[in-house]
């Protein structure tokens, strides 16, 4: 669609203007730091445990459309489970996070995935966009190799895998961009699944003002 188009009728399906992306993973793997690095470009080595959930918004431009990315950071500790799980619903993408210097956090990825699918009430888990992040690649003593992690991603549904470091900003932005694209792609796919024989002439994208200036 040409950006100069002044026609109110668009053929392109409406895209979501708010994307909810949720960070899950064991306590201490760096979920809050990843969110802070991406949104405020800051790193604080002395963050307290997250209690319950927190979130930040970031506005992005994707294919000429304004998209608000709402990044939800969650508490990884088991004792906060009942506080965080009610907020899984409505997520458009899930970032499963582990720390490359903590093998247990890697092993727990499957549990996190299960917990998410259960509480988010995902209809088609096999099509839901997950992205896997191996954080803290800045540390020298790794317990999880890149190969192991890639293998897990492959076996579980071809999830994209990123090795990140919130501390020195490695791959953080790239990972979120991938999450956005996956989420939008899944959204488009879902849109196409709706059986529509009719052409909706009056359908306007929510972000109409943004693209027809």
């Amino acid at each position, binding site marked *: 669609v040409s950006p100069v188009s002044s026609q109110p009728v668009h053929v392109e399906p409406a895209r979501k203007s708010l994307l909810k992306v949720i960070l899950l993973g064991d306590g201490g793997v760096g979920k809050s730091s990843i969110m802070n690095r991406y949104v405020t470009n800051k790193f604080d080595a002395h963050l307290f445990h997250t209690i319950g959930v927190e979130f930040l918004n970031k506005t992005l431009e994707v294919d000429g459309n304004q998209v608000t990315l709402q990044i939800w950071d969650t508490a990884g500790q088991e004792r906060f489970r009942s*506080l965080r799980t009610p907020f899984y619903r409505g997520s458009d993408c899930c970032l499963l996070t582990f720390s490359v210097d903590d093998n247990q956090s890697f092993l727990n990825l499957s549990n996190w995935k299960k917990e998410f699918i259960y509480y988010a009430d995902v209809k088609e888990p096999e099509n839901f966009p997950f992205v896997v992040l191996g954080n803290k690649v800045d540390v020298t003593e790794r317990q999880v190799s890149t190969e192991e992690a890639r293998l897990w991603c492959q076996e579980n549904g071809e999830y994209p895998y990123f090795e990140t470091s919130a501390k020195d900003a490695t791959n953080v932005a790239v990972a979120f961009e991938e999450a956005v694209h996956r989420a939008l792609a899944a959204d488009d796919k879902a849109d196409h699944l709706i059986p529509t024989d009719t052409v909706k002439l009056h359908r306007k994208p929510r972000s109409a003002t943004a693209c027809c200036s």
Partner: protein
Amino acid sequence: MAELKPPDSRRCTYFFLYDGSKVRGEGDPTRDGICYFYPEDTPLDMQDLLCGQLAGVSRCVSELSSSAVQTLRLRRCKFAIRMKEDFFWAFGCSMEVPTVSVCELLDHLISLFCFYNGSVRQSYQLSSKENLASEWARYLSHVLSGPSELHYIFQSVRTIDLSNVDPLLLLKAALILQACQRCPLVLAGCILFRGRVVSTQMPPELTIKVIVHESESYSKIQRSSGESPASSDGGSVSSAAVFLTPSELQDLKSAPVDKTSRFHPAAEKDAPPKKTRLSRTLSDAASCESEPPRPASCQSPQKGSISPHLSGSEDSAFSPAPSQRAADSPSPLSPCSNGTNASEAVEGDPEESHYHSFYSSGDVVSQTLSEGDGSAIEESVYLNGATSATFSADDSFGEEKMTAGLKAESRQPPPGSWAPDSLEDSPLVAMTLYTHRVNSLVLALLVEPGFMSDTASLEEVNHSSLASLNGLEAHLRAIPAAAPGAAGPYLFAHHDSVQHTLTTNVSGRPGGAPEHPFVRATSLLHSHFFDTETLQEAIIRNAGTAVYGTRSVAQETFFQQHGGSMRNSGIPNQQDSAFSLPSKARHRLLKHGVNLL
């Protein structure tokens, strides 16, 4: 805020501020001196009459007795009176309301005004009468907006209903505040949700004042200039100038904050010099000097022990200036080199002493003045130790006054306890109230005036709190509102006089008629507790029911059991069900977190 209702006429019949400096000559009309009058639709003649008479009588009695009038009774209306310089405040309500509560309400009202506008005189020099009238109206409506009559008797900090809130969320709120305090320009803060306190680092007196801003912040944003635009994150950040009394400031600054964990330890030195908006030398002296550490006894545990009421810190706003008093009454106590301490030591807690004398019927000095319309004005004269000592009274009042004064003295707080801000006329210190709103959640911080122009500090505070505030808001919003439980088989009210919180199952719903006797009994008992220092437990009863009240230095609790036949034969009887009230109260109230053991 939805809770803001127009003032209940039962709760406040009149409120006015009268500026005597505007009415000097014989020909000056009284109405020139009326700064604000509630109800606003009162006919001007009526306003003139009331202002003229109350102000005249109060001034006359004050001059005769060399002490300020604190309460007046006019037929079925009770007035709390405050005078400062040429200003005269009167707050009138029905006789049912305890005198202590009426005085607290007026003090609270004045302190709210001063908190947001600075000194009254200066406000009226800088701003128009109309603008300030809307300020008074706003504070009045807030002061009177309590959900039930009990909130009118006990001015209290309204906290969120904790019954459904995961304690971890309270921890989360406390951590947000702590994170903000890492910025050296941040003094203290509180977090409010739907106008109720979730967590606070401030003393209750300050928290109560800050809540007013929150409840009005939306309209305020439109009215006042100098607001920061809404942040891109959907929340809105704003700021307002506020004015703290020196003792409030000292309390905040002496709070144990781990300075080493602050963001920029070096910035402490760079903090802008504290200055007041008013160029008064005393203020500069007070704020530039290093704050002396307060004695341990100043700290909170004893705060409520002496004066279990709110208004202690507001005395500065209304009492006559010390110099004036010293001139009026040749006090045998020679003024110390430190005038501040002298006035503190001499004066103690003027209200306490006054109430005492007021309630002990023998001490009440009353006169009846026949007015033009025939209404009798009965008045009580406030006496304190300092002034009574100076009476060379040869009339019959003399002894009574002396007695009252001595009694008052015996109730003076020991030095070092929560000395109310009796630094008369102490200059207020300008600070800034920073607020960050996320939907129904508000983070309010008292910050140094330089904070709003310090981009680094602003950003630091914003970054450290935004995500958590978003999350906390989402959590609190997800909590279902507690269903208004059916009135149980009992009514209770529990007032924590240290935290200034009120826990009660009195709903204050329009159909709450059955609750009214309980509220009345509570009000009566509250008065008695205030009046009689040694009274700890009391039962008030009529033929049908009984209300039990108990208090300690930190709390007052009232309890009424419904149902069950009263076994009351009129003579002392072990079977009398009223005697089982204390144990029932202990048992029943445990589940409300009230421990009477």
